[in-house]
């Protein structure tokens, strides 16, 4: 393990621009600090409106910060000026957003290959890798379907592997399974853990579901209501590989669940 954490959030703050004639808008996030180790699966949980998406947007560099610092591989990221933002920080930070954001005019395969196309990395090897991912998440046979011809769960899978296909060392996930039914959700959680076991990337996974945060993460951060700060930090010591379907019966689960629920307001 590297001596320095892969990603450090130092005193991060965010308030949105004020409109003329209004009171200054309140802080969404204030003085937030935490760090993420290389290869760690960090889950972040917080009540809705606690600035979870805003936090990920700042880490992904599609939104500016109003204060504080984000250090990636010990380098401070330029996050104060909208003009100097570097979305995805040179393809090193992948972002699976809440909505799938598939391009409706591209087929499943074309959507999955999209990052490789714009990065100029489309070749036989990366193409084969993409095909492997498509099979791994059960999208084989749907390569030539357009997004409107896919179910919600399939679209989620496609958007997930669109990020995995170019192999960014860090992946941010914003409630990626939020809008799905319980069965599909569990299936996708299992898929995700399986894929993570192959690649062991650094993942920051935001959710409002306590069970999901425990089942997936090595460590869970609990955020307060806005302005978001850390309300608690929990190491999830349930051994891997984990069985999502049986995880609730694990002895450590109930205790963690109670502790985290007490902190989430």
């Amino acid at each position, binding site marked *: 393990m590297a001596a320095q954490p892969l990603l450090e959030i130092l005193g991060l703050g965010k308030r949105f621009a004020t409109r003329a004639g209004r009171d200054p808008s309140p802080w969404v996030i204030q003085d937030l600090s935490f760090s993420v180790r290389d290869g760690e699966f960090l889950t972040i949980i917080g009540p809705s409106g606690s600035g979870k998406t805003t936090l990920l947007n700042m880490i*992904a560099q*599609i939104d500016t910060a109003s204060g504080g610092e984000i250090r990636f591989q010990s380098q401070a990221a330029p996050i104060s000026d909208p003009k100097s933002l570097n*979305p*995805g920080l*040179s*393809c090193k*930070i*992948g*972002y699976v*957003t809440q*909505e799938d*954001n598939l*391009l*409706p*005019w*591209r*087929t499943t395969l074309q959507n999955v290959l*999209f*990052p490789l*196309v*714009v*990065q100029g990395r489309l070749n036989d090897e990366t193409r084969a890798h993409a095909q492997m991912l498509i099979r791994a998440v059960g999208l084989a046979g749907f390569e030539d379907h*357009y997004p*409107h011809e896919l179910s919600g769960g399939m679209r989620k899978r496609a958007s997930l592997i*669109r*990020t995995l296909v*170019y192999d960014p060392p860090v992946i941010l996930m914003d409630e990626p399974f939020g809008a799905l039914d319980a069965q599909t959700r569990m299936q996708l959680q299992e898929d995700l853990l399986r894929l993570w076991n192959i690649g062991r990337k650094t993942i920051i996974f935001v959710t409002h579901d306590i069970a999901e945060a425990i089942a997936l993460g090595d460590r869970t951060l609990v955020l307060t209501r806005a302005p978001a700060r850390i309300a608690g930090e929990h190491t999830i010591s349930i051994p891997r590989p984990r069985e999502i379907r049986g995880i609730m019966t694990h002895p450590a689960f109930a205790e963690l669940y109670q502790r985290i629920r007490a902190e989430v307001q």
Partner: protein
Amino acid sequence: MATFEGREDRGAGFLGARLGPALKSYGDQLIVLLVLFAIWQALSMWLGTYWIGSPWGVAKRFTQDVLDGELLRHASLTLTEAIVGFVIGALPAAALPFLLRRQPIITAILDPFMVGGYGAPKLALAPLFILWFGIGIESKVALVAITVFFIVYFSALAGIRALDAKLVQMAQVVGANERDVARHIVFPGAVPYIFTGFRIAMPYSIGGAVIAELISSNRGLGYLIQLSAMNFDTIGVFVALVATALIVFIGNLTVNVVERWLLRWRPPSDVMLQAAT
């Protein structure tokens, strides 16, 4: 998605002509056609064929004019004017909002002039264009081009403005530069809007050419209408009108086919089911 589906519906209903809806609608359309013929026939019998040529008379003359090549000679000129004018007007109109995408200030400065140009009655410019470009094909092409330009410009602009910022962010995060965004996100997203513009502008291009010919020319369907009316030949007027309507109808089918191929990624409910229900 939902926003431009709603928008597109208006375009879809335009002229009503759609390929591929349930066969039932063809039957209904036939009934409407027969009713229209019946009204036409009744009017011509009531007011006399001197004022309103009978459908049968029009059909006979139409066939005769087609066979001796006269009608095709006039129609092909009108069609040429419409197509050349359409291309000259529509292509820059579709391209301009893309070029100005990163120039919101210039777009804002242009806006009142574009709105003015859009709202101004372009047909009133026909005499001016004839003065400037003569009674040949140039004045007709100019009128068609300027008519088509504003319609397509505003459609393309709407397409650019309806751009989903989240798709752009997604593309930037995975490494897309400004050119990739324009090519892979902005342009494909605007195509449905541009086509709505094409669909609306197409009949105007034929109409613009015919009206310019009406005012001053020595060939074309508009000239045929004018000539026939001056000779109190109502059948001749109707023949030219039927030919104009046919051209618009075929033009609309062509736009449909091209659009359906280009927009095959869209849910079919937009393209066909709406027309069928």
